[in-house]
C-alpha cells in the first residue's frame, strides 16, 4: 500500500552521518591532517585552489579532505566559501619576469639566459610503481642552488626584442580587471574575461580541447615558448599610502605558447601568443589553457571558426566543472511531475497509433489497481 514519502529530513541527516562515517574510514588508522595533505598531496591542493580561484592552501586542503578526495566537490566547497568573501581591492598585475623560479623550460631555444631548469617534475621519470614508498623510509634532500641565479628573461621578451612576436597588448584605463564571479557572462567576451574563465575552467575539459587543436580541430602550430613555475609577489596599491605594499607570495605556473604567425600588407609577419596562468604547479592546465586561449582568438585574427576549441560560447559556457557537475547531477532529483506529463502524452499517442491501424483492437489501459 502507498506510503507517503515522509521523513525526508531524517533521511538526509542519516545520509550525512553515514557520509561522515565513511569519510573517517577505519578508526584504527590515524586521521590524515590538512598539513599532511598540503605537504604530500600538494598538486591536489594546487588544483583545488586554481579551479576554485582562491589561493589558500589550508582551506583547499580542508575542502579536499572534506570531499573525500573528490576534486570537483572540493573545488565546489572552496568556491562556495570564496563567494562570501568581500573584495577589498585589486592587486597590481603580477610580474612573472621577476619570478623566483623553481622550474623553467623552453622548447624554442636550446639555451637561453637563466638556463633550462627542470625543477620538481614528473618528466623523464619512468612510470614504474615504487614499492619503497610503502615504507616511510628516509628521503634524500633535494639539491638546491646556493648562489643567486642569472635573471631569466621571458622568452616572449626575447622574441619581442626582435619584433618577431605580437605585443602583449595594452589595456585602456577603464578596461580589464573584469570579474566573472561578480558580473554575468556576456558574449562576445573580452580576452581578460576569457582568460579568467579558462584559469578556473576544468583541467580535463581544457586538456581535451587543447588536444583537439593539435589534432587538427583549430590547429595553431604551437611551440612552447616557455613554461615557468615559481613564486611571484602580490602587491596592492594603497591610495592612502601612495605606494604599493606587498601582501605575500603565491606560486603560479605560466605558459607562453608561441603560435602561428600572422602578417598582412601593413604588418610584417609575427608569431602570435597563447597564454596560460594557473595557481600552484600545473603545467598540464597552463599548457592546455594557452592552446585554448590561442584558439579562441580566431575571431581577432580573422581565422575561420570551425572547431569546437575556437567557439567562444561553446568553450566558455561549458568549461566550469562546478556548473557542469551541478547540472548533470541534478538529473537525479525528482522529475516525476514532468515525467508524468510525458507518460500521459506517450500513452495517448500510442492509443491513437493503435486505433489508426486497421484491424487491430483498441487495447484497454491496464488498471490493475482498480
Amino acid at each position, binding site marked *: 500500500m*502507498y506510503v507517503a514519502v515522509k521523513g525526508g529530513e531524517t533521511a*538526509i541527516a542519516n545520509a550525512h552521518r553515514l557520509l561522515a562515517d565513511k569519510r573517517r574510514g577505519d578508526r584504527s588508522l590515524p586521521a590524515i591532517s590538512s598539513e599532511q595533505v598540503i605537504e604530500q598531496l600538494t598538486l591536489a591542493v594546487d588544483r583545488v585552489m586554481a579551479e576554485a580561484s582562491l589561493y589558500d592552501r589550508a582551506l583547499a586542503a580542508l575542502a579536499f579532505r572534506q570531499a573525500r578526495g573528490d576534486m570537483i566537490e572540493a573545488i*565546489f566547497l572552496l568556491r562556495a566559501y570564496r563567494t562570501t568573501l568581500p573584495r577589498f581591492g585589486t592587486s597590481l598585475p603580477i610580474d612573472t619576469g621577476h619570478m623566483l623560479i623553481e622550474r623553467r623550460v623552453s622548447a624554442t631555444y636550446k639555451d637561453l639566459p637563466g638556463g633550462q631548469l627542470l625543477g620538481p617534475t614528473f618528466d623523464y621519470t619512468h612510470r614504474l610503481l615504487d614499492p619503497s614508498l610503502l615504507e616511510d623510509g628516509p628521503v634524500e634532500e633535494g639539491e638546491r642552488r646556493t648562489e643567486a641565479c642569472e635573471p631569466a628573461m621571458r622568452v616572449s621578451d626575447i622574441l619581442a626584442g626582435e619584433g618577431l612576436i605580437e605585443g602583449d597588448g595594452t589595456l585602456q584605463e577603464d578596461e580589464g580587471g573584469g570579474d566573472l564571479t561578480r558580473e554575468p*557572462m556576456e558574449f562576445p567576451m573580452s580576452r581578460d574575461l576569457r582568460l579568467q574563465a579558462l584559469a578556473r575552467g576544468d583541467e580535463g575539459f581544457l586538456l581535451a580541447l587543447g588536444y583537439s587543436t593539435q589534432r587538427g580541430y583549430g590547429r595553431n602550430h604551437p611551440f612552447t615558448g616557455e613554461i615557468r613555475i615559481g613564486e611571484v609577489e602580490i602587491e596592492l596599491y594603497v591610495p592612502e599610502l601612495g605606494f604599493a605594499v606587498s601582501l605575500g607570495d603565491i606560486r603560479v605556473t605560466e605558459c607562453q605558447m608561441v603560435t602561428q604567425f600572422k602578417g598582412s600588407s601593413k604588418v610584417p609577419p609575427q608569431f602570435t601568443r597563447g597564454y596560460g596562468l594557473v595557481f600552484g604547479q600545473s603545467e598540464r592546465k597552463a599548457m592546455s589553457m594557452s592552446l585554448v586561449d590561442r584558439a579562441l582568438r580566431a575571431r581577432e585574427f580573422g581565422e575561420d571558426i570551425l572547431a569546437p576549441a575556437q567557439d567562444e560560447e561553446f568553450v566558455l559556457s561549458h568549461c566550469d566543472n562546478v556548473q557542469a557537475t*551541478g547540472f548533470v*547531477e541534478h538529473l537525479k532529483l*525528482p522529475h516525476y511531475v514532468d515525467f508524468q*506529463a510525458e507518460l500521459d502524452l506517450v500513452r495517448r499517442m500510442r492509443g491513437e497509433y493503435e486505433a489508426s491501424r486497421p484491424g487491430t483492437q483498441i487495447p484497454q489501459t491496464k488498471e*490493475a489497481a*482498480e
Partner: protein
Amino acid sequence: MSDLATYNFAYLDEQTKRMIRRAILKAIAIPGYQVPFASREMPMPYGWGTGGVQITASIIGPDDVLKVIDQGADDTTNAVSIRAFFAKVANVAVTTHTHDASIIQTRHRIPEKTLLEGQVLVYQVPIPEPLRFLEPRETETRTMHALEEYGLMHVKLYEDIALNGHIATTYAYPVKVAGRYVMDPSPIPKFDNPKMHLSEALQLFGAGREKRIYAIPPHTAVVSLDFEDHPFEVQTFDRPCALCGAEDVYLDEVILDDKGGRMFVCSDTDHCEERRACGCVGELGVKQEAAE
C-alpha cells in the same frame, strides 16, 4: 578558522542582495525579459535551485513565512534541504500551508490553491531561454528576443503537430508574457500554465547557473502559445485523487506492485492533506486513514 562559520542573514551579503534586487526590479519592469545578473556560487549545486535560492535570500525578511516545494510536495528531499537552509541561515518561520506562506519557492509546480496578492512565488529555473533548444547560441537568442522574432518557436510547434498530431511539449510549455516576450515558465507541467495568467501573486524566476532573472508582475497576461485550430489544452486525468478525491488537480502516478497496479494521487501534498483534514476521502484514502 572559527570565523568561517559566520554568515549574513539569509547567507548572501547585503551588497549581493542589492544587486539581485535591482535585477528583480528590472525584471518586473519588463515582464518576461531575462535580466542577466551576477549569480553567486551558492552552498548547494548549480541545477539544484541556486537561482531560486538567491532570489528568496534577497527578498526574505525576518517576518516572512517560507514554503518550499519540489514536484508540488513539501517533503521531497531537495525541498526539505532548501527549507532547512533558510530556517538555519535566516531563522524564518517555515510552513507547508500554501495560504500561510508569504514566499513560496517551487520547482516544477504551481500550488493548486490560488495564490493571492502579497504572495511571491519563486521558481527554480534550469534553462531560462525558451529558444535554447532551437538555437544554442546566446548571442542569437538575445537578438531574436530583441526583434520579437519568434517564428522558429511556432515552426517547432507546427512540426510537432505535423509529425505527431499533437504539440509534443508537455512541460516547460512556452508562454507569451504581456504580449511581448516569449518566456520559459520553468519545467512546470503545462497543466499549471493557466495559473500564471493574471495571477494576483508576484512570480519571480531565478536561473543561477545561467545567471538570469525574470518575472511576471501581478495581474499580467500570460498566454500559452498555440494555433487557432490547435488551441492550447492542459492535461486531464480521468479519475480523481485516490487519497482525497480531488478532481481538476495534477496527479502523480504511484506504482503499487509489480503487476501493473498503480494509483494516482495529488502532486500538491498540502492541497491533498488539507482536503483530507476537511473530511474529503478518495477511493484509497479510507484505508490510509484507518491505518493511522
